């Protein structure tokens, strides 16, 4: 909801610029990663995922990069639009989570797009 974005790191960008949101994950055994977008008053919505056997994956206007050496994940949004304003979460699934897809979420980053 509206309070989700409070106390979070904020990335402010101009409309039309590219955005890069970063995430450090915690578990070296994590094998699957997802980026979620949460707009005010809504539940998280899937954006893009990547598995640990890949370094890069592209979707529509979004690219996820994975650096397993330093346990770092990034989300790049091309030509950022006002509708991209939201809180973005990275999530990981450790390989040994029992097959139950237990997502571990980061704290999130608020993206603010200015005209």
């Amino acid at each position, binding site marked *: *909801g509206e*309070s*989700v*974005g*409070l*106390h*979070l790191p904020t990335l402010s960008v101009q409309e039309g610029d590219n955005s890069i949101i970063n995430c450090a994950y915690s578990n070296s055994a994590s*094998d*699957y990663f*997802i980026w*979620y977008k949460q707009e005010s*008053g*809504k*539940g*998280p*919505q*899937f954006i893009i*995922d990547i*598995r640990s056997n890949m370094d890069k994956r592209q979707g529509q206007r979004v690219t996820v990069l994975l650096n397993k050496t330093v346990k770092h994940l990034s989300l790049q949004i091309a030509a950022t639009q006002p509708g991209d304003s939201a809180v973005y*979460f990275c999530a990981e*699934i450790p*390989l040994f*989570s029992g*097959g*139950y*897809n*237990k*997502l*571990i*979420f*980061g*704290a*999130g980053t608020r993206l603010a797009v200015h005209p």
Partner: protein
Amino acid sequence: DVKVTQSSRYLVKRTGEKVFLECVQDMDHENMFWYRQDPGLGLRLIYFSYDVKMKEKGDIPEGYSVSREKKERFSLILESASTNQTSMYLCASSVGGYGTEAFFGQGTRLTVV
């Protein structure tokens, strides 16, 4: 499209009340989850279920219980609500097996007074 529906968007309850949060998914998913979301803390897993009548504790199960009598429905129960349980509660579901995305409901904002 997968649909995960939470029964209430907003709830206000009194301290000590027993509270039920209901979640229904329509995609025959095996896994269902309950998270709570607090400012600056991200999403924290309370409980999850991988099959009917099966449940596992998440990271913060204290003060909560769950029920899954039917595959499509997963209920979160606050046995005796307290003010520190004021939060946004999110339900999610996913298919069984490893490495698939979870689909979320719209959330229930619970205020305990």
